[in-house]
Every structure is written in structure tokens, then in C-alpha cells.
């Protein structure tokens, strides 16, 4: 057997091995988390852990509902802010702006995407927190420390925007020119073309981008925990503090190990996070497939 064939075989097997490793890693993480959070699952029922709001580790009460709700609130609001901004600016840049503007903006967006999250956190503390406290909340008739769900969502949105925007620009640019020309020559205005054809054509891409944005937002930790207040409660409005799961883990892991089961509780928090992201990704992959089938 000659060397070329040997190398070929080796390369194929090695690639297969690496792919298996990636999947195995995910399984290992899951198994590790389940193993580590087992003690708390023995002591408390799953429904108590997931649906109770009482969080008092000293007394052995571990209800995660406040954390779960904070996590979802911040994720959803940040996407509600980021998505329209991204879609409209990406559309403007691709469809309407002169090419030169896109050439300037695209590298800037990439720089923003690469800024470490702790810097967004500091910026949030310095700029957004006072702005919310002194101007925005009073305007709506609320008093707040400024460390709240809205601030967290805003900081998160600002972090998600560059990533989503870059992807959306690519998605929009992939629409063939002939399709635009044909739509216009049927008598569509520019806006009708964008709304009825370009966005529709891009729907799978737009959805995939949004899914990626949400995945990033759910897990983002540092920047959020710096501005969100970290108070264990179910936030009743956007100006109240919250405490999302990643912040809980990052703030407490490695401390207070003397409290029984606290360690296991934090592991369980990580497990919830992983489960949410896995479920979310699988669900969205399924939906994406259906949409792609029915449109393109």
C-alpha cells in the first residue's frame, strides 16, 4: 500500500475522531454537571428547584425561578432591542447606502464584536447606569439604582448587535441581483422589494442569525452581572434589579463552600443553562428546517 493512500485513510479517520470528540465533549460536560448537581436533586424535587422563588441557601432552600426569569427577561429584551436595529441598519447598508459606507462600517462592526465583554460592562456602569437612573426611569415615573433589567438588556443588546449585524449583512448580500431587478421591474418600489422579496428570501438566514444572537445573549455573563444589580427577586418591571443564572454562577462559584449543597446548587444552575441552550438550539434547528423548506 502506498503512502498516499495511508495518509488519506489516516486523515479521514482522524477527522472523524475529532468530530466525535466534539460531540463527546458536550456529553461529558452534561454528564459532569448532572453528576455534580446530583446531591441537590436527591434532596429537592425538580419542580421545587425550578418553580420556587425562595432562595435561602443557609436554610437549605434553593428555588431557581427568580434566576430563570431574570435570564429570560434580559435575553428577550436585549433581542427586542437588538433585532430591529440590526435588521434595519443591515438593510440600509446593503440596499441603500453607497458602497463606500459599507466598506467603512463593516470593519468597525468587526472591531466592536471583538471588544472584550468586561469593557462593555464598565461602559454600562459608567454611562448607561447613570443615564437610566437620572433620566430614563424618572421620565417613566420610576426610581431605580440604575442597576436593573433594562440596563442589562441594553448592554447585552449593544454586545449582540455587531455579531448579528455582520451576519445579516452577509445574508442580505447573498440575495442575487437578478431577483432584485426582476422584482423592481414588476413595478415594486424599493421598499416593497425589500419587504416582500428580500427579507422573505432571507428569512432562514435572518432566523439563523437571531438564534445565534439569542444563544450568545443567554450565556453572556460578565458584562451583564456588572450592571444588572444581582438581587434575588422576580423583576416586576424593567427598572428593577435581576439576577440571571450566569451571574449567579460567576459571582458565587468557589466561595461559601461551607454551606451544604451550595456547590451542587450552582452546578444545577449551570445544568439549567446548558439545558435551556440545548433545547433552544434544537427547537430552532427544527423550525429553521421547516421554514427553509417552505420558502426557498
Amino acid at each position, binding site marked *: 500500500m502506498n503512502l498516499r493512500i495511508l495518509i488519506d485513510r489516516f486523515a479521514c479517520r482522524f477527522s472523524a475522531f475529532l468530530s466525535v470528540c466534539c460531540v463527546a465533549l458536550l456529553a461529558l460536560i452534561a454528564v459532569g454537571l448532572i453528576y455534580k448537581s446530583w446531591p441537590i436533586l436527591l434532596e429537592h424535587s425538580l419542580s421545587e428547584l425550578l418553580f420556587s422563588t425562595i432562595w435561602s441557601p443557609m436554610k437549605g432552600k434553593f428555588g431557581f425561578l427568580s434566576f430563570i426569569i431574570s435570564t429570560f427577561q434580559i435575553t428577550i429584551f436585549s433581542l427586542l432591542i437588538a433585532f430591529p436595529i440590526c435588521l434595519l441598519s443591515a438593510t440600509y447598508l446593503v440596499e441603500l447606502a453607497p458602497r463606500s459606507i459599507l466598506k467603512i462600517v463593516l470593519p468597525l462592526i468587526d472591531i466592536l464584536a471583538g471588544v472584550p465583554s468586561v469593557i462593555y460592562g464598565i461602559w454600562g456602569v459608567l454611562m448607561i447606569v447613570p443615564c437610566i437612573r437620572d433620566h430614563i426611569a424618572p421620565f417613566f415615573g420610576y426610581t431605580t439604582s440604575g442597576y436593573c433589567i433594562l440596563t442589562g438588556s441594553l448592554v447585552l443588546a449593544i454586545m449582540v448587535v455587531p455579531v448579528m449585524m455582520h451576519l445579516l449583512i452577509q445574508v442580505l448580500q447573498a440575495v*442575487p441581483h*437578478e*431577483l432584485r431587478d*426582476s422584482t423592481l421591474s*414588476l*413595478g415594486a418600489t424599493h421598499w416593497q422589494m425589500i419587504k416582500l422579496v428580500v427579507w*422573505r428570501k432571507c428569512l432562514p438566514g435572518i432566523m439563523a442569525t437571531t438564534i445565534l444572537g439569542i444563544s450568545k445573549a443567554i450565556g453572556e455573563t460578565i458584562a451583564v452581572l456588572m450592571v444588572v444589580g444581582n438581587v434575588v427577586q422576580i423583576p416586576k418591571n424593567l427598572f428593577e434589579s435581576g439576577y440571571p443564572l450566569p451571574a449567579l454562577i460567576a459571582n458565587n462559584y468557589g466561595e461559601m463552600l461551607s454551606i451544604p449543597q451550595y456547590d451542587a446548587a450552582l452546578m444545577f444552575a449551570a445544568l439549567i443553562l446548558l439545558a435551556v441552550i440545548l433545547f433552544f438550539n434544537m427547537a430552532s434547528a427544527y423550525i429553521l428546517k421547516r421554514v427553509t423548506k417552505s420558502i426557498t
Partner: protein
Amino acid sequence: MQINPHLGISQLNVHIGDQQILKNININFPNKAITAIIGPSGCGKTTLLKTMNRLIENSRGVNITGKVLINGQNIYDDYEDLTSLRKKMGLLAQRPTPLPMSIYANVVFGLKLHGIKDEKILQEKAEKYLRIASLWDEVHDRMRDPASKLSIGQQQRLCLARGLAIEPEIILCDEPTSALDPISSKKIEESFNELKQEYTIILVTHILRQARRLADYVVFMYLGEIIEFGPAKEIFENPKEQLTKEYIGGLIS
């Protein structure tokens, strides 16, 4: 020639950046006939076609001077509303461009844009123009399927039906069969032969045999200029210009 041309062009120059793409184009297209525009690729055929419905303006850095007249009106002066200009012309692109929606929604897309809402009228017109594009028999029982499910040849006929449905006066085609198999090409060509009774058809093609089969008149372009224009028979059998002779004889391509 004729007295009231549908579509005429006078002293048209198009620059993109600092390159001159079209040089002093003057022509009156014959009404209700197929005029083929032939010439080697890159000579400006697509650009010329796009000046006629002002799609060329969407390219960056274009500068257009001169007139394109439709029924005597200069489209660069008199049409504030581009959509009403484009209603007068159907465009068939080089590759099929099905819109990301159902077959039916594709055909009636233009009609809906122009404000026709009555479902009964829409359905009637959809059938009428799908028949003209000889696609009705193949799709009538699956009008709600996505248009992308059709074969490439069917997609192109769908695009033809979609363009016809807005009831234009002029049909602009840019190498409409270049992506198609021979049988689909033949069906499209047959449609053109019928359509020329009622429409003024401008057909860009790089297939000389297609021009021979279909065209009543032929325009030969070279490097952004119109070299020769005349009845198809004359151009093919007795061209006056040396360049035309060479192109038709296959010497330049």
C-alpha cells in the same frame, strides 16, 4: 420607418465610473415585432436593456445622457413614478428569478402591486398568462407549491407569465434561454413567436441561431456602439458593415 414607435432611443450615452459603456445609441425599435440585439459578450447589450426600464440607475456610479422615448415621452424626464414606467415593460432575466413564494403568488405578484385585489380576477389572469407561457398544464394542480420546486425551465416560463401578467406593452429579455435545456428553450421561443402579435419584444441573445429563428429585426452591437440595424434577413444575408460580416461569419465572438 414607422411613424409612432413604442420605444425609441436617441443620443444615449452611458458611463459607469470613467468607462463609457454605451456610445451614442440612436434607434427606433419596430412595434409589435421581435428585435434581437446581438453582439459579443461585454459589448453592452444588458446595459442597453437596463436603460430602457431605468434599472441601470441602481448600479453605482452611472451617468446617463440622452433620451429613451416610450410613446414619445422621455422616460428620464417624464416619469416621476418609476412603477408606472415599469408596468409598461416586462423583463425576463438571464437566469430564472422565482420570488420566494408560491407559484400562484409569483404570477399575481405584479398585479397585487398594482392594486388588483379581487381574488377572482387574480385567478383568471394567473390562468390566462400561465397558459400563454405554456406552463398551465404542468402547474395548475399545484399552484400553492413554492416556485423554487419547479425545474429551471419551468421557473423561466413562470417568470415570463409573471411579467406578462402586469400587461406590459414591451417585453425586454436578456438572454432568456441561456440557462435552459433545449426543450424549455424551444417552449420559450414558441411563446415569443405568438407574443409578437401583440407586444414589442426586445430580445438580447448571444445565440446567433436563436436570432435567426426568431428575430424580425436585428441590432448588432460592438464595444458599446450600434454597428448595424435592419431587418433580420438583410443583416444575416447581406450585412453592410465589415464587423457585422465578421461576427456573423464567426470571426469575432
